């Protein structure tokens, strides 16, 4: 049996809209205890935010996403943190990861159009001090994100009634 914290996180990670009451029922616990634990998780910043996963293709508004591989000069004493911070403060930037391998930072950006992303790269990112090179990749279609499949509606293929 996993501990209550892990269970709560596991349930909320899959569906942030599940209420404390429902979680309590699923785990065989008291509602107040679950609500208190969730509050604690929020205060401790274990739970950072509840967001919504959107299929932009269906939402029908202009939207573009890209992933940029960035090679940087790490700085003495500060390593990669300082340059990462300068990058992630831009609104367009949705995620920044320090990577192992042939480049250093993986920068995920979002904007209304591809043009805006391009402009961001050559006006803001590529010219920044400490950046050696960038390679930009545009996302053409999303198949799966955060464990959710985008391209097909998963149907229940089972018989309605079976023994």
């Amino acid at each position: 049996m996993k501990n209550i914290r892990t269970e709560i996180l596991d349930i909320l990670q899959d569906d942030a809209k599940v209420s404390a009451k429902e979680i309590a029922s699923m785990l065989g616990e008291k509602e107040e205890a679950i609500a208190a634990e969730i509050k604690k998780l929020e205060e401790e910043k274990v739970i950072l935010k509840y967001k919504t996963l959107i299929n932009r293709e269906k939402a029908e508004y202009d939207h573009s996403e890209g992933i940029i591989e960035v090679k940087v000069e790490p700085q003495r004493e500060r390593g990669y943190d300082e340059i990462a911070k300068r990058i992630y403060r831009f609104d367009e930037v949705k995620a920044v990861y320090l990577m192992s391998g042939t480049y250093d930072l993986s920068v995920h950006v979002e904007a209304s159009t591809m043009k805006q992303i391009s402009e961001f790269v050559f006006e803001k990112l590529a010219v920044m001090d400490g950046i050696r090179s960038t390679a930009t990749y545009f996302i053409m279609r999303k198949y799966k994100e955060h464990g959710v499949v985008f391209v097909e509606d998963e149907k229940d293929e089972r018989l309605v009634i079976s023994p």
Partner: protein
Amino acid sequence: MNYDKYIAKCVKEIPPSGIRKFFDIASEMDDVISLGVGEPDFTTPWNICEMAIYAIEKGQTHYTSNHGMTELRIEIKKYLSERFELDYDINEIIATVGASEALDIAFRAIVEAGDEVLVPAPSYVSYMPGVRLAGGVAVPVLTVAENDFKYTREVLEKVITEKTKAIIMPFPNNPTGAIMTKEELEDIIDVIIKNDLIVISDEIYAELTYDYKHVSIATLEGMKERCIVINGFSKAFAMTGWRLGYVAGPRELVDAMVKIHQYTILCAPAAAQEAGIEALKTEHKNGFKQVRNMINQYNRRRRFMHEELNKIGLSCFEPLGAFYVFPDIRKTSLSSYEFCERLVKEKMVACVPGTAFGEGGEGFIRCSYASSMENLKEAIKRITEFLEENGWL
């Protein structure tokens, strides 16, 4: 032509399935939320499917040994030993076309005309017809809600006669969700030994127990020699459509069963056997992570359903196995069949009437929680409305 005179008497005598009738009603409706499904809502893990596709690509499209591929039986042997402390040699294992075939060859290997076989009631729909088709007499053993639908020695002693040859152990149970603990099993085995019965233990839901670990009756002292253990991949690995099960037991009984198996089936499907090898190998390597994750998901839904149904006055005992709850609907004064028929027509929620599982099922309905939490929540909402609108809540 008058076909009636050609159809065998024992086939004619088997009543039509109680599930079939209900299936016809429910499957004609759109937007039904079904709590009537007796199989996992998970799809087979992709690594298993992928391996089967590869097996077909590389030409694994032939007959296998009657017993099943050696590698599969080695994996089954390891699995049974590690998960359930059941120790069988690979020559004491047959891979079958689902646990259903395993049941069939077990019945046919031991039952002679007139032999009595104890069949739990309520229980899985195949036991009774299976015994009858083998020429035996299926004797129902009533299990009751007051006793959490378990066998007791008193009830067994009452139904055993000198013609009784075997008893079916159906735990964890479909439709009730009942299990029997080690202590409870110990309490009945001397009745079985004293009356020299063979046990056919259907352990297809063995992985799906909650709070208690499944104990196979074959692991109890003096029982292995008289037990036929049946299991399969359908429930633990979400592989119902692959039709892969197995049976393990004493060599002489297995040899008798393989005789029927080799002439009627020949072997379990080769690609499914390859899939079974992958399922067991990978899970073994990963410490049964996928299985544990699945059990954890079912457990949440189980607690949810048990609590919510009790809350709206459809009392049910806490099921400790399988993926069913079996609430009592007697306070509505409807029969199980009427309740389910009205529920699906008025609120589009499909459950299975308890009577589909034989004697003792009247007054109960089977609700499967092998369905998403959203579906379960919606179903509870609709059942609540159904009860309120009819003045039962």
